[in-house]
């Protein structure tokens, strides 16, 4: 065994090809910088590899979850567990880590919900008295959000809400029938239900000839063959490759970032999965964007005499302040929709209706809040995914409602009567998901497990994450909201009310897949690894552009902010290169 070293020196090497790595690569390659991108998984081009428009019977498991936790047609290669690449837990922690190993990372299958953080979200401590303020303001980031909107495309409606800033929007899709019932109920509770905001081209994107407009199949999670939604693969990396300035090596699992005697980054060491050999590449600058937890892992594993505590970790903060959004929800069968009209109601595969946080948390027992994501409609009959087979409840519910003849009967059954009940109940489900802000805490973290390595011999992450009282109180409030909505909807609830024994239905940390914060920004090098440009305080030619940079998340889904910050960091790097500072 030997280490294969290349003599070529790239201007920049980027670790990771998701939203953060993809955007940095796109900006730099288009500016003429010679970039090498390392991706741990295989090449993935939605135009070719998407499972879009397949019918359930084109899958032997009819869409089931046996190899893909979000369904057989879901675009993600990876999941909650990956063979030979474990992670461990400490102190009874149950953090769940979703990884996608593929070009574009998790952006291939995400729900495309694209929200800006608001002015108060960047100043959490000042505005709400919890957490920390970012070293940047909304006004500093706004121009980048605007540029991301124009470059990638996002639909929405202009609302003028203070902490839910409008963008440059394409037309919003209309709601589905079931969603209107939920909207009515949520509005009665005082929520302001507005159009969702999603990176789906509901109209052609001005100036872009490579991407088609959405044709409304509602399958964004499979990724889009005509690039009608945002994936980092289709919208950033593949276009950047066409400039001739970006080279991508796939199946390259990064072991560590290499540094020299001055403590500066010199390149990256990786395993090439296709031949299982060790390689080293050289670069003048390294950009880390391997995902929130993986990036922390790489820094902590990159130890040297100059960086004995892990690279860029003199603060001892790398891995700490890990935080995911709180998550809850409820679903209901709407009896008024039995035997409902049939029409193509696929819509978009992102969010049709959403309600920003609408209450004043000063009057509540938790800071900040959560938003509502409304769903429902005539979904393609399928098995697997988040909802499984929708009809699974039919033989349990058919005893609660009168039949076609107006008479009650025993629940369950078989035969022609049951077959007809499946028809009657089809398309009657609706519901709401709650996604809330959690405050970053130093004692929620990932670290290197001192005793465990993965199949490549790389030390693995160990997680320690506990929900706090604020998070549980927020979940309790979600349950109250769910209960009030169920009453207003008048339907049959599909989920039991959750009590204190289950933290009020609060999902395990990580299940939101909104984890951020492990390599946070902050002006003080003793308290944060990154400065406000995403540059490490300890190593000036090392930058970070993924979700790990968040000082503090909000209840807004993080991807749009990752894209805006990555673009800003890449432009900053271009300036610094001009000034020959890096």
């Amino acid at each position, binding site marked *: 065994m030997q280490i294969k070293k290349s003599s070529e020196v790239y201007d920049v090497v980027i670790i990771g090809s998701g939203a953060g790595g993809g955007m940095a690569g796109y900006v730099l390659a288009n500016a003429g910088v010679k970039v090498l991108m390392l991706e741990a998984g*295989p090449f*993935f081009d939605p*135009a070719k*590899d998407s*499972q*879009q*428009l397949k*019918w*359930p*019977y*084109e*899958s*032997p*498991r*009819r869409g089931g979850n046996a*190899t893909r936790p979000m369904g057989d047609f879901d675009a993600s290669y990876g999941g909650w567990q990956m*063979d030979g690449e474990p992670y461990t837990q400490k102190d009874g922690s149950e953090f769940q880590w979703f990884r996608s190993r593929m070009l574009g990372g998790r952006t291939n299958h995400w729900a495309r919900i694209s929200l800006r953080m608001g002015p108060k979200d960047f100043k959490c401590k000042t505005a709400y008295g919890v957490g920390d303020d970012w070293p940047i303001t909304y006004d500093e980031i706004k121009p980048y959000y605007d540029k991301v909107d124009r470059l990638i495309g996002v639909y929405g409606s202009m609302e003028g809400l203070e902490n839910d800033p409008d963008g440059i929007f394409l037309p919003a899709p*209309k*709601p589905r*029938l079931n969603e*209107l*019932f939920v*909207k*009515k109920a949520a*509005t009665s509770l005082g929520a302001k239900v507005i159009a969702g905001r999603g990176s789906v081209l509901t109209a052609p994107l001005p100036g872009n*000839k*490579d*991407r*088609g*407009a959405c044709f*409304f*199949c509602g*399958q964004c999670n499979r990724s889009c*063959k*005509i*690039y*009608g939604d945002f994936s980092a693969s289709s919208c950033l990396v593949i276009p950047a490759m066409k400039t001739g300035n970006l080279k991508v090596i796939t199946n390259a699992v990064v072991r560590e970032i290499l540094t020299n005697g001055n403590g500066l980054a010199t390149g990256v060491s990786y395993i090439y999965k296709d031949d299982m050999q060790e390689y080293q590449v050289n670069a003048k600058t390294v950009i880390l964007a391997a995902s929130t937890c993986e990036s922390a892992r790489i820094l902590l594993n990159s130890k040297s005499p100059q960086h004995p505590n892990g690279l860029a970790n003199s603060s001892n903060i790398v891995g700490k302040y890990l935080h995911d959004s709180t998550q809850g929800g409820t679903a209901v069968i709407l009896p008024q929709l039995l035997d409902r*009209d*049939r*029409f*193509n*109601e696929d819509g978009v595969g992102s969010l049709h209706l959403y309600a920003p946080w609408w209450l004043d948390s000063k009057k509540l027992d938790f800071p900040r809040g959560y938003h509502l994501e409304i769903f429902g409609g*005539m979904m*393609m*009959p399928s*098995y697997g995914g988040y909802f499984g*087979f929708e*009809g*699974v409840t*039919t*033989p349990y519910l058919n005893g609660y409602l009168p039949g076609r003849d107006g008479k009650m009967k*025993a*629940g*369950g059954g*078989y*035969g*022609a009567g*049951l*077959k007809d009940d499946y028809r009657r109940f*089809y398309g009657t489900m609706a519901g709401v998901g709650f996604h809330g802000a959690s405050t970053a805490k130093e004692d929620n973290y990932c670290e290197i497990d001192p005793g465990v390595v993965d199949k490549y011999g790389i030390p693995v992450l160990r997680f320690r994450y506990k929900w706090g009282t604020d998070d549980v109180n927020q979940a309790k409030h979600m349950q109250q909201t769910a209960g009030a909505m169920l009453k207003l909807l008048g339907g049959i609830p599909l989920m039991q009310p959750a009590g204190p024994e289950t933290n009020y239905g609060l999902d395990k940390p990580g299940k939101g897949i909104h984890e951020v914060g492990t390599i946070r920004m902050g002006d003080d090098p003793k308290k944060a690894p990154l400065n406000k440009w995403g540059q490490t305080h300890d190593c000036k030619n090392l930058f970070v552009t993924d979700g790990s940079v968040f000082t503090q998340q909000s209840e807004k889904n993080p991807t749009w902010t990752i894209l805006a910050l990555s673009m800003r960091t890449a432009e900053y790097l271009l300036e610094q290169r001009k000034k020959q500072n890096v």
Partner: protein
Amino acid sequence: MNRRDSLKAIGIGTLTAGAVLTGCKPGEITDEVQVATTGREAFEIARDKTLVKETYFDAHEMATITVLADIIIPKDAKSGSATDAKVPAFIEFIVKDETQHQLPMRGGLRWLDVQCLNRFGNAFIDCTPKQQTTLLDEIAYPALAKPNMQQGVAFFNKMRELTAIGFFTSKIGIEDLGYKGNAPGKWEGVPQNVLKKYGLENV
């Protein structure tokens, strides 16, 4: 990319408008178990190829599953039966794919046969239709079932669920439900007459 190019890109540009609207790809689609390779990871392809070659249920078990599936979802005026939709083949695959179903199915089928043997002197499939439904009536309605029949209820719940999944995710079953999507279109919201029916015009 304009709309026509878009449709070409997804491989349906040459079809007639009618076929596009119904989402049909003539001659391509069957209910047979297939192993896809494009956009799949190597381990998934290998796993699928192995599973389709393996056999879990024996001939008697498959015969029983076939009879039960058609009792649960028979042919009616609107669509075919569970076996018309190849539900037994789906059940054979899914228990290999999701192995947690194996023991409840195998043991449940045996439970059913032993019940029938004790009462009627025959295995389930050799009983008369009247005898079969007499027994099923005791396990098909969970709230009415006697305590000593609970194992049968658990089995029938699973059998019914797998049958319904297999049927309503087949081509026959999807057409039966009247699902209209999975085809390129233009979503312009809920039709006005439907909104009016539910008093949602101004929501």
